[in-house]
């Protein structure tokens, strides 16, 4: 299996099964951006939580299904996404911005002011 998925879940939620969404994570000077694929998750069923230094994403897959739909073939069988990340100390968990569009969640986690790079002027002396 080449899939970059690890199994991790909070102990209290072991009974509801979920798959790990695929993510891109990248960092620039001002913060970290996380993109997560959450196809079929409507805005109202998406949960983004920061608790202490843990960021938790959870969403339920709810595509519009017509009455009496009988499955013939299914690759998506667990209708829930869940994944958590540990934030490091210089990230500001209180100012996370989240945007969900066409099943892609974009999270922007800014760095705390004191952690952003500053240019230090060298005094001539």
């Amino acid at each position, binding site marked *: 299996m080449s899939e970059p998925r690890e199994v991790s879940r909070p102990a209290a939620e072991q009974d509801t099964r979920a798959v790990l969404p695929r993510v891109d994570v990248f960092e620039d000077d001002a913060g970290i951006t996380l993109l997560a694929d959450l196809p079929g998750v409507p805005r109202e069923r998406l949960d983004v939580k920061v608790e202490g230094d843990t960021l938790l994403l959870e969403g339920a897959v709810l595509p519009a299904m017509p009455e009496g*739909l009988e*499955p013939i073939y299914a690759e998506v069988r667990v209708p829930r996404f869940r994944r958590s990340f540990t934030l490091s100390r210089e990230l500001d968990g209180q100012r996370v911005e989240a945007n969900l569009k*066409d099943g892609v969640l974009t999270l922007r986690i800014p760095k705390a002011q004191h952690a952003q790079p500053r240019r230090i002027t060298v005094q001539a002396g």
Partner: protein
Amino acid sequence: MFGSMLSFPGGLFGEMERLRREFDDVMDTRGLPGSIRSAGPGSLPAINVGRTPNSVEVYAFAPGLQADKIEVTLDRGVLRISGERTSGIPETQEGKVNVYSRERASGRFMRAVALPDDIDGTQVRATYRDGVLQVSVPRRESAKPQRVTVQ
């Protein structure tokens, strides 16, 4: 004896059993036959197919696309869905972006799925919502369940 060991909650075997179940979910080994055109696990987009008395419904889990760039064709009972997704990671400018994780697929993709014989391919409807493309193909009148009156 092994059964009870395996179902011991929270134990090592329970954890392994859970892993095995998750593996089965991904590898499609739980009864339903795999399609000959299905790609490997984790391919984009994943596809679910269902049937109602009136239609065949195909769901393609394809997040982050532009609706007008998705191509859907139906030819001799084979539905093809293709498109392209650009990477969300910005091109490195001046080496200021560090990439830690690059799991989301990008580039062109194509999936094909054979539909049942009793469809009416002239009235296909496709909608894209929350990153899921739903293609609805009506079934022919003659294929719908009919009540036979007993004389």
